[in-house]
């Protein structure tokens, strides 16, 4: 199980003939992603690393039945690529491109939503569902199959967190980088909701950074709605002040957006925050142990040991069956 992408993902690569597009198309294919085509206007009919190239997304979708698109086109054309993808019926658009004007994204965000599609990014490393599909630029060799969901605003810091988990023997269901820009298609809460609903995911690692108040909002959501444990890391404790947007920035966010504020909000919601990404697996393990203990104690009171064990088995089976559906 996973979120957003899986074995059924049929991917097209917008900007496949560029340096990054062609390199990562090949990397994704090697990982096992079903890359069905690429799009570069004027290069239709050619092939890149054995992948057929089309002139338009509409044509690519018609010929390949693609449902997902990843965008590597330069910033000046990236927003147009998003529109083209959703207009062609793509339901998940992952925009890797960095440097897209924020005001363009405001309009694109509304448009994508109106069309019932989902956008991830821009300025993000993409998504990887372990052993199933990889959409974006994350190095595939750092992930390992397991029960943890990872969501992050950062790119490379996400890899760091994943690698720490993998080294500690804690594999992942899906890892997603939602992007560092102000205006992004999918935020923490959207992703946490999906992880909460995903049966294979047993715990979530959330990586935030300074600026805005998405982490604070996510903390509230976790406290109210999530049953699965979440542990976090916030980058930017040492960041110099001055990235503030005049008076209006402070007024609008209703807070300063500093690392301290975010860590405090997360701690208040019962989410431990690591001092280093390498501490994340330890924190997660502690959370799991706490849950195990909490589960074990009341059961002992209700019935004797053998019965409790039997009960446990049936619930586990039920979950498995439901998961297969």
């Amino acid at each position, binding site marked *: 199980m996973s979120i957003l992408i899986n074995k059924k993902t049929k991917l097209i690569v917008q900007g496949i003939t560029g340096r*990054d597009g062609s390199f990562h198309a090949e990397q994704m294919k090697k990982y096992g992603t079903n890359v069905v085509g690429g799009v570069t206007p004027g290069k239709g009919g050619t092939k890149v690393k054995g992948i057929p190239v089309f002139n338009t997304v509409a044509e690519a979708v018609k010929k390949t039945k693609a449902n997902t698109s990843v965008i590597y086109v330069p910033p000046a054309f990236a927003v147009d690529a998003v529109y083209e993808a959703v207009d062609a019926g793509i339901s998940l658009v992952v925009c890797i491109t960095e440097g897209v004007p924020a*005001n363009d994204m405001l309009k694109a965000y509304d448009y994508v939503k109106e069309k019932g599609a989902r956008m991830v990014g821009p300025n993000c490393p993409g998504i990887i569902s372990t052993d199933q599909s990889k959409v974006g630029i*994350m*190095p595939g060799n750092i992930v390992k199959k397991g029960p943890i969901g990872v969501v992050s605003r950062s790119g*490379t*810091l996400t890899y760091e967190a994943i690698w720490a988990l993998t080294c500690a023997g804690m594999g992942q269901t899906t890892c997603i980088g939602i992007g560092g820009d102000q205006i992004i298609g999918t935020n923490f809460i959207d992703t946490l909701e999906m992880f909460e609903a995903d049966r294979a995911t047993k715990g979530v690692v959330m990586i935030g*950074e300074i600026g805005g108040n998405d982490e604070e909002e996510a903390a509230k959501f976790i406290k109210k709605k999530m049953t699965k444990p979440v542990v976090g890391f916030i980058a930017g404790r040492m960041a110099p002040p001055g990235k503030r947007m*005049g008076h209006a920035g402070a007024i609008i966010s209703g807070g300063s957006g500093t690392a301290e504020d975010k860590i405090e909000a997360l701690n208040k919601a019962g989410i431990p925050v690591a001092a280093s990404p390498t501490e994340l697996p330890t924190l997660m393990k502690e959370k799991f142990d706490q849950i195990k203990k909490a589960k074990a104690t009341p059961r002992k009171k209700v019935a004797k040991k053998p019965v409790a064990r039997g009960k446990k088995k049936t619930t586990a089976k039920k979950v498995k069956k439901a998961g297969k559906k």
Partner: protein
Amino acid sequence: MKIHEYQAKDIFAGAGIPVPEGKVATTTAEVVEIAETFGKPVMVKAQVHVGGRGKAGGIKYAENVEAARVWSQKILGMDLRGLKVNTVLITEALDILTEAYVGIVIDRASKAPVIMVSPAGGIDIEEVAAKTPEKIFKLAVDPIYGLRSYQARDLASKLYKDIKLVRQAANIIMKLYDIYWKIDASLVEINPLITTPDGKVIALDAKINIDDNGLFRQKDIEAMRDIESEEPSEVEAREGDLSFVKLSGNIGCCVNGAGLAMATMDLVKHYGGDPANFLDIGGSSNPQKVLTAMRIILRDPNVRAILINIFGGITRCDDVANGIILATEELKPEIPIVVRLTGTNEAEAKKILKSTNLEYGDTLDDVVKKAIKLADLEYAEAGRN
């Protein structure tokens, strides 16, 4: 990117938003000349990219030409919260009846430009927002359909009772919204928006921030950049397509990705070291970028060790490795360099760096601790010499 008040006012005036008459000067002689032509009291306003200029002594009222001369002598060249004042704006001093606030800012949460107005404008607007939020009125504008006249009128009526003033303010809000979109702004702000005894609504101050991502199609705005008001190494970094912020520590950091760069700095601090800078070489790095990064870091005399932390995704470790070779050959650094290269094309990178005598760290914590240790050793050695 930030632009100065006088540049923002030029944009306002061009769009038809009333601003006080004004002229810029870089010398006292120019100030005197401008004050003489005005022939009435003027304001002398420091043009630097910091907030709270008035409170810091960068904005002064000058009754006459002599006062303008005295104040400009004080303000020109002064240090305003770490920035040197090179330019002042001289404007006519107006009689002020009321001070209101109008601002438009991009809002991540509502995914819209949000217009904020308050009848309690002026230097304490942030306090107003914190203590009496009911005095701030907000409207998230639909980015696709734009701002309607009635919405602007509605906002303006929160500022004034007199319909004549409401109409003027509504007109200003509409124009401000147009400016916001036209120039790829992330913030446009008038604080204060004043009324005068003769019933006029005027933008007494102007603040505009531009979304850096929009600059590629805003050549006129890009031309307004005041290079002199920026840290030289930060300018060089930007021209080399790097993000760089100078700090005061002794460990030079070269990292890919803003999040990891911040986390690396945080960890340096966590383990008892002190980072000399924030530096993100970005994605798709070519070897040249690493060379520029190293050159900028090495220029800082405080730096005792360089920490290179790369987790390759779109950045390829072999590109960075080639850059490190290039930099060590060209710059011949005399301080220790600690490297961690992991992720995309890691094996190729290790081959490239095989014959060098750099220090290596395997994990994030590892490389940070090593850099701190080496910087301390260097420091001790420098002390002995």
